[in-house]
């Protein structure tokens, strides 16, 4: 698969979002960091992160398997 510059154009739109998210995170941390972190106990935060990681890992494993068995060069016009 060849990635050309035009493929990256949509992701440029992500930059303002990432900047905005970082700004929002910094603002929340400064203004109500304790309130946010206080929503859950440390063990509950840890559990939440593990749950999200399990879901992400399952998705990556399945998509990785597809990318390996169905190489993108065979799908010039995209996969399903």
């Amino acid at each position: 698969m060849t990635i050309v510059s035009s493929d990256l154009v949509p992701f440029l739109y992500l930059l303002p979002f990432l900047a905005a998210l970082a700004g929002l995170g910094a603002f929340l941390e400064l203004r109500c960091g304790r309130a946010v972190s206080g929503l859950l106990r440390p063990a509950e935060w840890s559990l939440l992160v593990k749950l999200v990681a399990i879901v992400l890992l399952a998705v990556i494993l399945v998509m990785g398997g597809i990318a390996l068995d169905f190489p993108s060069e065979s799908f010039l016009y995209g996969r399903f």
Partner: protein
Amino acid sequence: MDGSSVTSATIRWSRIICVMLALLTAAEGAARLYVWLWTGKEYRSTALYRWSPYGLVRNNPDVTSPTFQIDKSGFRNIEEFDRLKPPGTYRVILLGGSVLYAGLASVFLQEEGRVGSDATIAQYLQRILAADPALKGMRVEVINAAVNYNRIVETSSAYIAEYVHWDPDLVIVFGSANNFLGVPTAEEIRLKTHNVQGDHPWKKEFERQVNQRNLAALVENALLTASDHLASVAMLRKLLGKLLDSAIAVAGRHSMQTPPPGDHRPASIEDEERYFNDYAAYADAMVAAARRQGQDIAFFWEHWLGDLGDVKPLSGREQWLHAQVRRAPEQTAYATRMRGRWVRNFGERKIPYVDPIDVLRTNDQTLYIDYLHYTRRGNDVMAQATYDALKPLIHAKVGDRERRPDSR
């Protein structure tokens, strides 16, 4: 109480779930805003295609894209069409692959931009027909039923099982390039795996997604379902897909695995004849169905830019493009031989066809946007070439309808 000493009995699951939902909502809001800024439309789906029982695949009417607009029936049209043809209508259905769809390869003329759904061959042909005095007073419809990488296998089954019942007056079959891609080897012909003889790549995906009953298929289908409803999941899937494809491509470049041994000798002329017969059998089936239903049918030949170095007066930008996509002499020779068979086959059987070679020989404008697909101007020129070649057929049909108003 110290967090580390919390037991499972004191874990507040409802809170955890609420926080997860809040995070998902925030991500979804951000993703939808991002899609809206990118496409100018509300998010519906990132899936370009959906499965069809007739001809494997259709375009997804719900796709959210800045340029690709698909109508409710999966056509590459902005206008909507009903299956029941309105009275007093001359209807043309165009079938084919990416040339008709106006797709785009990775090496293309960036300044041309993507061709929108208002500038494919179909829309130009509709304008030309609407201006034809012979069709005055008639409603003209030109439906673009192209799906990327449709071969004659998919095109013929889509037509015979579905589009024949849309009652077109004229059917034009594009997609020739997808049937005559690379030069076949003797082994490919022997094993019947060359182009139309082999499986379409999407068929393998169909088997995986639809027929497999395992955990991986379950997770994939859950992901696909979530993607169709949640922009955040769709964006995550798109990003992960690109990253994984890139990682595997890099790994492949450094792989020490050697290609499997095989017979790489080119196919003989007899083999090529056999292969052409396989193609022509599908074309014959379409012609038989069209004739039985009183519909006119014609075929269009798609030329590769890489074969036109000594044929077309290339524009400056086409010269640059041609240097990137020039084809090997044996590929050009193969395409020339297959085109000769194609022209002979339809000519001898009195089946109308459009070979735009004469237009290409004289037109020095930028008609190609990449190795095979046309620019907006190219689509306009090809629509005109199609009209010029088929005008007698169109006029004869219209004249016949005027003489027999009860006919379709």
